[in-house]
């Protein structure tokens, strides 16, 4: 009654359906490859080789994945509260400001291991602030958070352009970016870890923020499933009425959750700004905030799903770049299509295959459908 969708056994719900959805998304992407006159199989081979075939490839794959873990977690935390934070892109962008302020202020004062935690705080605080305004507007004035976060993406973009062509730009420079930070505001690279595994790398953008991203994945898991706050977030996300009954304040939970989401998105800036480019430049987010939506949907909002989903997208980013050397018709923008298809099939059309799958399962083994335990009578 309460759910208009057909019931399936748990293994099909959590295992089969997502796999089918992903498969369809990639199959359609394969069609696009065919459409531009290339072989999907060859493209896939190149992609995997490009992403994992060399130490440098792995380094880049994980570097991209780092950003996607942050943004994926950001979207997921909001999803758990029933909120759609589409503003990860903007929150990450202004998060870069937090990193830059810390690095520009202290890069010749503190060593990196002091600057790093400060930059984490800076990026998280500004990201959280940027998410807080739409959250307050939603909680107190009923403004639709999807629309306001979209608007805030654009406002963030304008703000950052203003700052980077103006106040933050060194006087003698033409490029819209800050000065390069001193080395004490650079995050250590992780190339040596890959070398431990036998890879040989000249340089890699992979840096310590990858470890931070993994730590954050654990933190988010703990937050959502092991803290009182997470319990309240999930209660509100599943049933606002039950949350009210349980004494969970609506405004508080919306604002706190969005701030956590914004903080995670903001931290994404650490990876490119402090870990690789060592300066704040225009458009450094390059869509990672939006990739987070696909990553969160694909990972079903669970860190254990988000990390592999982020690595998959990192692989697509890195492998996509490699493909374009061999297949000039396919550039990294292929990933944007795949991202869209994943969001479409794993998100909006999530339930498309449910009825037919249910029918198929029922005809294969009627018993497996009887397994759904709702009819179990106790007492």
């Amino acid at each position, binding site marked *: 009654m309460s759910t208009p969708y057909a019931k399936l056994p748990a293994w099909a719900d959590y295992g089969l359906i997502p796999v089918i959805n992903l498969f369809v998304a990639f199959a359609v992407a394969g069609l696009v490859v065919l459409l531009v006159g290339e072989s999907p199989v060859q493209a896939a081979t190149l992609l995997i080789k490009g992403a994992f075939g060399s130490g440098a490839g792995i380094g880049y794959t994980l570097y991209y994945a780092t950003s996607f873990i942050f943004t994926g977690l950001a979207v997921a935390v909001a999803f758990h509260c029933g909120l759609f934070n589409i503003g990860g892109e903007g929150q990450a962008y202004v998060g870069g400001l937090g990193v830059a302020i810390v690095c520009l202020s202290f890069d010749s004062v503190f060593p990196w291991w002091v600057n790093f935690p400060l930059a984490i705080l800076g990026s998280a605080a500004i990201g959280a602030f940027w998410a807080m305004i739409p959250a307050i507007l939603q909680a107190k004035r009923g403004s639709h958070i999807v629309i306001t976060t979209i608007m805030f993406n654009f406002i963030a973009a304008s703000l950052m352009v203003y700052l980077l062509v103006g106040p933050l730009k060194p006087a003698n420079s033409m490029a819209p970016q800050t000065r390069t930070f001193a080395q004490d505001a650079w995050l250590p690279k992780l190339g040596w870890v890959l070398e431990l595994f036998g890879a040989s790398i000249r340089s890699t953008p992979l840096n310590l923020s990858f470890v931070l991203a993994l730590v954050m994945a654990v933190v988010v898991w703990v937050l959502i499933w092991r803290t009182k706050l997470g319990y*309240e977030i*999930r209660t509100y996300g599943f*049933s606002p009425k039950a949350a009210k*009954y*349980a*004494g969970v304040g609506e405004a508080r939970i919306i604002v706190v959750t969005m701030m956590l989401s914004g903080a995670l998105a903001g931290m994404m800036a650490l990876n490119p700004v402090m870990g690789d480019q060592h300066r704040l430049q225009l458009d450094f987010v390059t869509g990672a905030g939006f990739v987070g939506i696909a990553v969160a949907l694909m990972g079903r909002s669970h860190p254990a799903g988000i990390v592999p989903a982020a690595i998959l997208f990192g692989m697509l980013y890195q492998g996509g770049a490699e493909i374009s050397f061999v297949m000039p018709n396919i550039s990294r923008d292929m990933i944007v299509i795949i991202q869209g298809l994943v969001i479409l099939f794993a998100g909006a059309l999530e339930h498309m295959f449910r009825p037919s799958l249910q029918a198929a399962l029922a005809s294969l083994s009627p018993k497996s459908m009887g397994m759904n*335990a709702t009819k179990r009578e106790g*007492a």
Partner: protein
Amino acid sequence: MAPAAIELKGINKSFGAVHANRDIDIEIPKGTIHGIIGENGAGKSTLMSILYGFYQADSGEIFVDGKKTDIQTPNDAIAAGIGMVHQHFMLVENFTVLENIILGAEGSQLLNAGISRARSELHRLEQDYGLEVDPDAVVEELAVGLQQRVEILKALYRGAEILILDEPTGVLTPAEADHLFRILRMLKDEGKTVVLITHKLREIMAVTDNVSVMRQGTIVATRKTAATTVEELAELMVGRRVLLRVDKGEPNPAAVKLSVRNLTVKDSRGVTMVNDVSFDVRAGEIVGVAGVAGNGQSELIETIAGIRKAVSGTVMLDGKPIDVTGAADPGELRDRGLAHVPEDRHHVGLVLPFEENENAMLGYHDDPKFLNGPFLNIDAIRADAREKIQKYDIRPADCRLKTANFSGGNQQKIVLAREMEHDPGVLIVGQPTRGVDVGAIEFIHKQLIAMRDGGKAVLLVSVELDEVRSLSDRILVMFDGRLVGERGPDATEGELGLLMAGVEAREAAE
């Protein structure tokens, strides 16, 4: 004899496991007002939705004017001359009256012709039936009674010969209701057939020619209104249920725990749901609130529990006020020893996708025993859940199972266990056994008696009259938002039934 306006034969309809209509046969003569009465959930609205093509029956036949008619969609019903006034008006609120009336019956691609035709037709209907309403008024600015008039006009404009009204007086003032009845009689005099669905006996007696009584999805009787009595109908409606014997000793009422004074609550539409209600509940007694569903009981307990805001009045818990008109918070009330088993366990009392143990602490998740600082103490939570599972015999005995996978009775036990085990001073219980299997009912009743005997104050709301009678030490009857009487546990079913149906207390005594 002319064929019946409507004849239904062998109608069946199930929603999942719920058999909403079972082998319904009914014949409604032309030019009469036919009442269908029954408690909420008896299947009245489902039956009429089938007749209107909003749902399709699983089996059975419909005859209109003696002709077998296949009604698949509302369009078919409209074509067969059936119009319906829904309980929740099917109006577009920011449209004008005229726009609402022509929606779906515009007549042509352009509106102008349809609108001017509707305007003159409306004028005619107005004169014929006294259905006055400003055609250019925006619906959301009209009073509820006028909105309903628009619904009736909508049906008549489509040429309805048979008009179904689903609980039409629920939102009306008595004066508006009387006006509605005058309109219905006028429609009848014009040869229209009217089907009136209601749970109010007074209305049946006042306006219908014939009445069919529904109970648990079936028609249990059809009578000529003139040849029946309120008592007979009340009994047919409530049914002679087997009174569940509950062993209980004499109550020992002690100090007043919960004191409600002049409480008035309005819903989001501004309709008064609880009207100037006052009562006390003492430690060591169960006070039952009897009433037909929808007479304000739900709003009453939600307000006391801090979920809903009151317009005016005071509520005292242990002699200290609850801020019912302002910032009362369920969490804070819980801390003060007020436990609440809500009526709607699926959406309020439980989070169905949660594991059992997560629900076993819902609302008590601030309790330090479940926490290590900001972290959940998973071991303690699960141990506590297992303890409750054992004590309340919740099955399956698996605290990691999703709550949605428990049966209704076991879900209710999860809620009860949670609310009772925190040793509250006051327990508010709404519909404790709705959708609960018989075995669990007995268990739940025993637990409630045990609470009473343990010196707790229990406020029980149930639409099951039996339940209220067998558990309560005092019975309050609620009708139309007011407390219309208080009786002892020995009050007869008939006496209570009349009170619940809104028959004045004085009449009932006679």
